[in-house]
Structure formats: structure tokens, C-alpha cells
């Protein structure tokens, strides 16, 4: 696969604190790379360093094989950025905002108009084109923010937590829009601390903590890192210590928890676990109501690797 962005040994310090610590990774053409980590893990700092907005202490960043600098205008022309904070002019309408920022990249008026219309359509804000930002809801404002960042149809798109504090409808709309961008051939670097979004969107994920890469790979590869391969939850009121002890001895059981009439059984293997536990409950005439089977999430992986939750 063709590497579009190469980051080597990137280190960025804020005084004594290492915000980014010896980070190395590649971004390949056409993929969505997720940078996943809790707040303060170095996602945005990494992005700002790649975009040449921030000085860094050590390392090397290349985009399309060329070193990224503040004056690398030929590279910047191919990049679109959606920052975490909304960056629009309050004095301009939705249309004029997108038109202005698109105009920084596209000079042909006809093409620009088409691109602005396409961007509004992509994020679903055509009917608000004459509204001013202050008249928009938080979700619509986020969508406008995205439209301003991607209207010029960039080849590489950096999305920094674009769904923070948005309503579910806007969130779905934004995620659909990102999928469309990928289908149109864009390479996307997506930073977030929402693991669900990463699982839906990303081809590859880099998990960051305290500025370091603690794991990377596809979501399936990352989940393989978790010791727990399956978690089964059973609602039952009839368990005693004897039964819990017997469940612990079942095949592939790693851990058993019983609290508030909920039995949780963690398995180190993912085969036939449901059959085994149901079989045990039936054979011992233990009544149960609902049973859930869960695969490990990225949060579980993060929890096992760092001892804390992604949203801590």
C-alpha cells in the first residue's frame, strides 16, 4: 500500500511533559486511520504537528514523500482539516462561510460554487444556507464546521473529534458523510475518544495514551489483544456460592462476577460458551430471564492495556 503520511520518531514536549513521545506511524492511501485515546493522550498535538502548526522537538514528518513545512503550499492544497473547535465567521451565512474557506483553495468561481453546494449536501445543511452560525444548533454548527474543512475536496482529511457534543441525528449524518468521503477516495485521519465511531469507520486504529502508541492494528487485531474473548451476562436470582464456584470450573472461563442478580462470565475463548452456560443453568434447574453475549470492545482492550477507561 502507498504510504501518504510518514511520521517518524515524533516527540513534542510542553516544558517537562512529553505530550507526544517518540511516535512513528504511516497513513496509507484511501484508508481511515483512527487515532484513539482519552483526553490529553496527544491526539490533537500529533495532528497539529503533522499540519505544521506546532513546533516539535524531534522527529520527521513527510506527506507525499515531502517534508511538511508551514510553506509547503503544494501539500497544503491537498489537505482538509476539521478542527475540534468550531471555526467559522459569525458575520457570514452558512453558504458564505463555506464559500470563503473553499476560496482559500479553489479560485475558479464556477468550480467553487459546485464544491460549496456539494459540501452542503454532503453534511445535510442545504436548507440552512442563508442562516447565520448563531442561528444554528450545536449539531448543525458542527456540520458547517466540517463542510468548511472539506469543501475543496481534499485528498487527505484530518478530522479532530468532529462529533463531540452533537445530537445523535447530526452524529449519524456526520459519520455517513465521512463514509462518503472515503468512498470518494479520500485518505482520512480521524481522532476521537469514541470507540464506537472507530469501530464503525476506521480501517486501522492507533491507540494512544500519554503521548505513546500502546497498540495499533485493525479493530479485530486490537480485540485479539484482549484476554477476554467473550463476555456473557445472565439475569438470574437463584445463584449461590456453590453454583458460582461450579461455573468457574467450566471450560475456558476466566472470571465470574455475580452482583445485583446479574451473572457475568468472562471467557478466554469464543466458541460454544453460550451453549455451555445455558446447559449448566438448565441441568441445575436455575431459572434465568435474559442472556447477553458481548465481544470485547476497544474500551476493554484499552482497559486491559492501561488499567483505565477510554473516557477517563
Amino acid at each position, binding site marked *: 500500500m502507498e504510504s501518504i503520511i510518514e511520521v517518524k520518531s515524533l516527540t513534542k514536549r510542553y516544558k517537562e511533559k512529553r505530550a507526544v513521545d517518540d511516535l512513528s506511524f504511516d497513513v496509507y492511501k484511501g484508508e481511515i486511520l483512527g487515532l484513539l485515546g482519552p483526553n490529553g493522550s496527544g491526539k490533537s498535538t500529533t495532528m*497539529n504537528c503533522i499540519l505544521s502548526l506546532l513546533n516539535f522537538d524531534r522527529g520527521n514528518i513527510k506527506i507525499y514523500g515531502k517534508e511538511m513545512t508551514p510553506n509547503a503550499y503544494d501539500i497544503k492544497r491537498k489537505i482538509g482539516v476539521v478542527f475540534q473547535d468550531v471555526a467559522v465567521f459569525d458575520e457570514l451565512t452558512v453558504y458564505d462561510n463555506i464559500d470563503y*474557506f473553499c476560496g482559500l483553495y479553489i479560485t475558479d468561481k464556477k468550480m467553487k460554487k459546485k464544491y460549496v453546494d456539494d459540501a452542503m449536501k454532503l453534511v445535510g445543511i442545504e436548507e440552512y444556507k442563508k442562516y447565520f452560525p448563531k442561528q444554528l444548533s450545536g449539531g448543525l454548527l458542527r456540520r458547517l464546521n466540517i463542510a*468548511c474543512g472539506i469543501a475543496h475536496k481534499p485528498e487527505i482529511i484530518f478530522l479532530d473529534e468532529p462529533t463531540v457534543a452533537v445530537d445523535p441525528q447530526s452524529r449519524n449524518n456526520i459519520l455517513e458523510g465521512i463514509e462518503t468521503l472515503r468512498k470518494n477516495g479520500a485518505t482520512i485521519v480521524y481522532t476521537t475518544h469514541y470507540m464506537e465511531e472507530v469501530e464503525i469507520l476506521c480501517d486501522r486504529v492507533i491507540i494512544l495514551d500519554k503521548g505513546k502508541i500502546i497498540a495499533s492494528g485493525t479493530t479485530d487485531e486490537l480485540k485479539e489483544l484482549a484476554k477476554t474473548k467473550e463476555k456473557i451476562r445472565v439475569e438470574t436470582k437463584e445463584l449461590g456460592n456453590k453454583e458460582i464456584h461450579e461455573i468457574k470450573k467450566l471450560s475456558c472461563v476466566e472470571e465470574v462476577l455475580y452482583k445485583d442478580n446479574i451473572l457475568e462470565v468472562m471467557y478466554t475463548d469464543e466458541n460454544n460458551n453460550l451453549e455451555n452456560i445455558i446447559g449448566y443453568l438448565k441441568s441445575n434447574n436455575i431459572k434465568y430471564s435474559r442472556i447477553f453475549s458481548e465481544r470485547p470492545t476497544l474500551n476493554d482492550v484499552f482497559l486491559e492495556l492501561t488499567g483505565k477507561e477510554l473516557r477517563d
Partner: protein
Amino acid sequence: MLNVVDIAVIQNEELDNNNSFKQAMDYLSNEKNSNRLFSTRYVSEEEASALLEKGEISGYVKLTAENPKIVVDKNGVDQTIIKYAVEEIYQSQDSYEELYKNIESIFNKEDGQSFFDRIKSLVIMLTKNNINIKDTSKSNLSYTMIEYYTLIAMTCMYGGIIGAVAISWILANMTNIGKRTSVSPSSKLTMILSSCMASYVVQIIGIAILFAFTIFGLKVDYGDKLPQIILLSSIGCLAGLSLGLAVSTTVKSGEGAKVGIILAITMTGSFLSGMMGVTMKYIIDKNAPIINKLNPVNMITDGFYSLYYYDTLDRFNFNVASLAIFSVIMLVISVMTLRRQKYDNI
């Protein structure tokens, strides 16, 4: 011993209500006064105009509700003395109100140069340098117009705030829009120049509205020097704008602090150049001239004053050139600071 200057004072209601001015003029016209300056007649405006036309008086003074109007028909030492003396009396009349019973002591006070000594020095200087005041009857200048000039200068410098806000939209460490602009392929120089031009147009429109208001609303007559005033205002706007850019790019703090610094510079500059009293400008000119030489507000107000006081445009041109150089220096500082800029934190 000074020559006695023939003048007239218009007898009207304002004069009747201004006892201190009349006392002062009577004192300066008293035949028994060894330093007699004027031979004063109190007449109607028609009579005064006729006397001036016949050459029997060098000029006449008409008190109005705002400021004294001095009318002369030619340039010369006598006319300069009339203007200087009347302005001196009018500016200091609060003191005379309190002490008019002992008015002689005011004109001959011992702490510093007496009024008459200053008049003598003025006459010597005028004679030596061949400097003439202009025929004020044509341009109708007054203290109110001097206030307008300082206010116009201040308005020009306020363009710095527009410049500072415009530049904040280019700097990644100041606004989110600045971050977005910084990642775009537009060059910093292009962005700065286009922002400068847009800000300058906005500032010029503001100044144009101000002039339109003073001309059509307040009926201010700028005489025949309006083109020079517009030129000076335009260069003044550029100086204000470039100061704003320089502050915005070099000072590492928030937008509010930068605007505060620009306001402080403008207000201090305006004060030192005489916005709150023309005397301050003269004090600085006399005691610390370098301050006013470097003060852009003073460059603007001094340009206006020079149009008022001098026949030649030498001093006006010097001020215009000074403002242009100041603007170029500020712009160069801004561009040098912004080029290839990356940040330690944003």
C-alpha cells in the same frame, strides 16, 4: 517697546457677558500702560468690517458662544500678535475671572516669562524668520477645529484595532479561524496584504463618514486644504493599521490584551499630542521633542496644525513622510514576525 496695534472688538452680547475678556483688552489698550499692545475700538461688526477694509485697523475680534473669531485681511506681525494675544486671553480667562481685580499681576507675573516678554519674543521670531500667519478670515479656523483634528487623528489610529482583529484571523495561536487559515495553501504575505487592504478600506470608509458628518452635519469649513487633510488622514489610517498589525504579531497574549495595548498607545499618543489641551503638545515639543517625533498621533495632528499655521507645506510633507516611514517599519516588523511561523503551543 512694542508698536501699538489698532484693532476692533465687536460689541455684542457675548462681549457684555465676558467681563474678564473686556478687562484684559482694556488693560492691554490702556494708554498709561508702558507695555500697551492695542488701541481698541468697540464697534458693530459692520463698522469693524469697514474699518478693516479702509486699513484703519489690523484686524477685529468677535466673541461667539464657542470661541473668539479673529478676522484679518493680510499676513503680518500685527495680525500674528492679535491672534496670539486673543488666544492667550481666551485660554486663560478662568484665571482672569478670579483675579480680574488685579489683572496687571497676571500679565506681569514673575514666575516664568511674562506675557509681554513672550509677545516680544514672538515679534522677534516672526521678524527674523519671516513667518506669517494666514488670513484666517478665509479659512475660518478656530479651537473647535483643532479639536476636530486631534479627534480625527485618534480615529485614524483606532484603525489599529481593525488591523489587530483582522490579523487574529490569520494567526493559528489566536483564533480557531486562524488555525483554519494557517493550514490553507494561501501564503502568509498574501493573507496579510489582503487583510490589510480590507481593513484599510473599512477604516477609510469610517473616516469618510466622519468627515461627511463634520462637513454636512456640523457645518465645519475645512477651507481650501481639504485635499491635504484627506491625504494626511489616509496616511494616518495606514499608520494606525500598521501599528495594530505590529502589536498583534509581536505581542504574545490574547486578542483583548492586544486591543488594550493599541488603545493605550493611541490614548497616550493623543494626550501627548494635545487632545485634552493644546498646551500639552507645546510642553512635549519644548521639553521632550523626541517623544512627539516618534508619536504617530502627533505626526497626524502636527500635520493638521502645520496646514493651519504655515503657508508652506514643508512641515506638512515632513509629517506625511514620517507617517509613511512609520507605517512601512510596522508592516515590515509584522511580516518578518509572521513568516514561517510555527508555535510552541496553540
